[in-house]
Structure formats: C-alpha cells, structure tokens
C-alpha cells in the first residue's frame, strides 16, 4: 500500500505468509530511512533502518528494500505472525528533517 492519503491502506495476510508493505517517499535527497511499527494504543517502535547508499538490509524476519530511482521503500516480513498486526510507517530524513508516511495497517489472519 502507499503511504499517502487520508485513509490508511490496509493489508491482510494469512499467518505464516510473507508480507510486503510499500512506501513512496517524497524527497530524492533523503539519505536515511526508517520503518516503524505502531500497535494500537502505543507509540511507534523502530523496526529497521537503511541508508541511501544501500539497496537492501536484513534484520530478524524483516527486510527493507530501497529503490532510489523511483523513490520507493518496502518492508518485507517473513512468516507473518499475529503479533505483527499493527500500523507500519516509513520515515525519511533529510538533514534534520524527518517526515513520516501515513502508514499501512497490517492485519494477520490466524
């Protein structure tokens, strides 16, 4: 789903499947990107980051891909679990300015 607009895009996946959440960022000069997870009633939680000199970075069950040509960022979650249900935000940083996308709501069906 995209990260702009007034209505949160949603993604529904089956437990155990892989999830891919997409984000279009705005500034081609942004040099640092972060994915956050926000569970209901809680503040955002850092998941994984990537610098603009990289195309891919892997964490535990998560992978972030960066395509600077089209200003696109994606978060891949392997073997999605019910605890992964949350809203996922991407953020871009340009100098001291950090901007967030609206987020995508991920729902995991058991």
């Amino acid at each position: 789903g995209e990260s702009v607009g007034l209505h949160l895009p949603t993604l529904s996946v089956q437990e155990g499947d892989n999830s891919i959440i997409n984000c279009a960022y705005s500034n081609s000069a942004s040099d640092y990107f972060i994915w956050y997870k926000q569970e209901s009633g809680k503040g955002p939680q850092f998941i994984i980051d990537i610098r603009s000199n990289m195309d891919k970075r892997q964490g535990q069950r998560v992978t972030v891909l960066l395509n600077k040509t089209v200003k696109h960022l994606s978060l891949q979650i392997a073997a999605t679990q019910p605890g992964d249900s949350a809203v996922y935000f991407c953020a871009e940083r340009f100098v001291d300015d950090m901007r967030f996308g609206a987020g995508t709501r991920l729902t995991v069906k058991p």
Partner: protein
Amino acid sequence: GAGVSQSPSNKVTEKGKDVELRCDPISGHTALYWYRQSLGQGLEFLIYFQGNSAPDKSGLPSDRFSAERTGGSVSTLTIQRTQQEDSAVYLCASSFGPEGYNEQFFGPGTRLTVL
C-alpha cells in the same frame, strides 16, 4: 532503562480551554520532537528542540500552539483555546542528537479529546 514518558495519557477538555502536555525524554537525549497523530492518519511533525532551543517550529499548526523546553530535558506543549480539530494523539520522541543518523524513541502519547 526508562524510555520517553508523557503525561497525561488521556486528556478530555472542553472547547476553548487551555491544555498542557508534558514529555520527559530519555536522559541524555538532546533532541526532542513533538508530533500529532489524528485518527487514521500518519504522524504530523509539530516542533523540534535541540537542547532548549527550537530551530524548527514550522509544524505548529497555529499560534494557539506553543512549546517550551527547560533545562534541556522536560518539554511542555501548550494548546490555548482548544478546538475540536485539535483532538488527536500527541506523541513526543527524543534522540541522542540531530547529527548523523539517530533513531527517535517515542513515548506512548497523550490522547487529547476536545468536546
């Protein structure tokens, strides 16, 4: 260790009243950010502090909004003459410093409801 804390967790107020929201950043973090999150929407940047100064106030939506930070630690966001459109979750975040690539750690937020 202690994370970012915010108080109150919930605030219900009447239209026209003033409210104060408090943020206690992680000890040693020099940068502090305020964001607003309206229902179903993304994070909206409000203001950024480096120490006690606010080099970026561009996100404050109107002159009814103000923020201060004293002693390079606690910050207060004040909304005067609250309006119903001010209803949102107000999130505070802190980071070690603005230089380089510093992760922002978020507090749990204050849910403001203006009746």
